[in-house]
Structures are given as C-alpha cells and as structure tokens.
C-alpha cells in the first residue's frame, strides 16, 4: 500500500513538472497541446474514495495552473474530471466485477475497457479545458479541432507512458 502510494506521489510530481516545463510549450500544428498530467489522476486506485480523488484532482490542477498562469482553469477541469471518473469506470466495467489490481491499467481491467476509459476521460478533459479557455474567443471549428487533436496526442503519449511502466514492471518480475 505505502509503496504504491509513494510511487503515485512521485509520478504525480514528475508529471506536473513535465507538464510545466516541457508539454506546455509543445503545440503541434498550432492546435494539439499534450495534456499528460491527467495520467496521474487516471491512475489513482479505484478503491480510493471520491472525496480523495476530488481533493487530489483539485491540487494537481492548481499546481499546473501555477506553472502556466491559468488561474483555476486546470483546477476546474480536473475537479470535473475527478467527478466523472467513477461514472465512466462503472459504465465500461462489467457489473459486480472487482479488478485484481486497484490501479486501472490494461492488465487489471482488460485492454479494451482500459482504452475506452482512457480515451473517454481524456476527451472529456480536453472538452472541459478548451471550452473554459475559449470563453473569450469563440470559434467553434477551431475549438473542436483543438479538442480532438489534443485528445489524440494526449492519449498517444499516455499509452506510451503505459508501455514504459508496464515493461519495467515485467522486467522486475
């Protein structure tokens, strides 16, 4: 329990720093921004209570906000995402089935369920963040393009992260 907690904490801090230093400055073709830090939120154990998920989500969002000078934008989007996490998981998981490992991954909840979970939540997050951001400028086609491109890029990067971690775990075994 403690080991996985420490692992998650380190992962969260590293992701927030990476988002602030590297990913925030990437903007492919002027539309796709990788939003990778939500990986930390998606990887929280299923067994964690909603209150904790909300608190951690808000804290992660606020720290990313501080790095990118976007007052409350990421905090709001992360809080909304934290609230959506459980309903989305319930939607895809077969009823009454408990995952072997509380941390959602392709090994613990099945590849297709995990992929659906990842894509849905990333898309939701991109919708939240770009809709909040575009309160002042409203250009619907550009907005949709940004949402889709960013979601695709983020999912691709997060799947890459997944491969990185799962391979390491296999080696250790």
């Amino acid at each position: 329990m403690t080991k996985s907690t420490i692992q998650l904490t380190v992962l969260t801090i590293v992701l927030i720093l990476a988002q602030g230093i590297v990913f925030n400055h990437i903007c492919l073709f002027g539309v796709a921004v990788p939003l990778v830090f939500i990986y930390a939120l998606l990887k929280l154990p299923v067994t964690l209570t909603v209150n904790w998920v909300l608190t951690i989500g808000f804290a992660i969002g606020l720290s990313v906000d501080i790095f990118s000078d976007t007052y409350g934008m990421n905090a709001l989007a992360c809080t909304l995402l934290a609230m959506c996490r459980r309903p989305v998981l319930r939607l895809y998981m077969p009823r009454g089935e408990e995952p072997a490992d509380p941390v959602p991954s392709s090994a613990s909840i099945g590849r297709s369920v995990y992929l659906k979970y990842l894509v849905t939540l990333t898309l939701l997050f991109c919708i939240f963040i770009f809709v909040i951001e575009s309160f002042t400028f409203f250009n619907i086609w550009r907005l949709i393009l940004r949402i889709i491109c960013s979601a695709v890029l983020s999912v691709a990067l997060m799947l890459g992260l997944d491969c990185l971690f799962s391979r390491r775990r296999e080696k250790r075994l």
Partner: protein
Amino acid sequence: MRDILNFLIRSSNWILFAVYVIASCILLFSTNPFQHHVYLTSAGAVASTVYRTSNTVTGYFALRDINEDLQRRNADLEMQLLGLQQQLRDQRLQLYADTMTVDTVLSRYSFIIANVINNSINRSHNYITLEKGSADGLKPEMGVVDQNGVVGIVNVTGEHTARVISVLNPYLRLSCKVKGNQHVGSLQWDGKRHDVALLEELPRHVKFKIGDTIVTSGFSTAFPEGVPVGTVISAQKDGDDNFYSLKVRLFTDFSTLSTVRVIVDAMTEELRTVEQDITESRRKMN
C-alpha cells in the same frame, strides 16, 4: 441534528465537489489580472525556481535565431551609425559658425536587462516570467521590449521575479500609431497567430500603406514614443465604417524570446501626481 449530520456525511462528495468548483471559478473569473496574488503565478517562489533551473538548459536552444536577430539589428545600427557620422560631420562644419554648445539632455528613460525564464505563445492569454523583480527596480506597469520591438507590460512583481502580460494577451491594449502621423489606435491580440495583432479604432481619414511601420504612441508611461511594434499587412473597415482595423505583423518573435529590456521612466511618479491633481480638481468642480 443527527439527520443533518447524516445528510452531510452522505452528500459529502457533492459538497466537496461544489466547494472545489466554486474555488476554481473564483480564481478563474477574477478577471482583473492586476489583482492576482504573486504566489499563484509563475512569479511565485516554487514555480520560478523550477523555471529558472529549466531555463539554464533550454536557454541555449534558440540561440541561433537570436544570434541572427542580433546580427541583423547590429547591421541596421551600423548603417545608422555611418549615416549619423556623415550628418555629424556635415553639421560640425555648420556649428563652427555658431557658438552654441551641444547639450546632452538628461535622458528620461533607462533600461533594466532581464532574462526570460518562462514564456507561452499557444494559450488565449499569454504571460512571460522574468528573472528580475522588485529588488532590481522592476515595478508593475513598466514596459518591456526586446531588440526587435514591444514585448509587454510588467504585471506582478516578486522579489526576484516578475510576470509580464505579453502582447499576445487580450488583456493588454497598447496605444499605437502609424509611423509619421499622430492618429492613435489601440493594438490588441485577436488570439489567432502568435505573430499577428490587430490595430483597432484607427480613424478613417488616416493615410497609410501596406508595409508601413506601427510604433507606440507614447501616451502611457510604459513605453516612450516610437518604439517599433510591427508592419501593416492588411486593413479592413470596422463595423461602423468610421474606423480602420489593421492587421499588424509583430516585429518581436515571441517564440524565441530570451533577453528583454524593461523600460524605466524617470517621470512616472511626476506624471501620475499631475494626472491625479487633474482628476481631483475636476471632481471638485463637479
């Protein structure tokens, strides 16, 4: 009483959710950027330390472009120098006739050089973080330029860091004019491309050509008159036909910003007190 407690415990998820949403909305909709607290910005202690460390590495990435810019600027200045030397030689001949001594006027403006440690161009509201702060003499509302043109205005200052509202931020409206005449319009970013901004509210009778230079008007204490901003690339009539709005290609390349100069105006205080006197006397008259 117990019912209330039970209710609170049962719906604690939603209550917590509402609290966080309200907290982030308060942050999000406190639209006046001047009221933001320094600890919640990139000029705060933790964020600025991280950015400073990362800048020691990434500061080298854009050197090639910056070098080119500097060389171009250097060439321009050398050309100007040659021209001025020629003029000086001509004038010195004339001055022999006059007994007037040439005064050096005490300059009103001075500069503070600062490193950029964080910068964004892809958001709808962009900010820049500098490595110098109030301890180095920076104050909010000072203008920031680089070797090419206008960059932004200082917004929040920490002790050793400061946050600048970039020109690429719709909160910033800059009073500008077409070089060579006195009619003023206001420059604002439209959120689309990081090298183009709009000069709005320019009166209809102003004469200009595509390719004309846009400079600052000097109506604020942030920038002196005539700091280059960009060139006109296209023009269109505003909604009511009485004003032009010009598309301006900015001289400053915001994607490779690394060293900037903060403009210190020695007359800021004086101007402020004078303007305050005017508003006060006007209030008394009313």
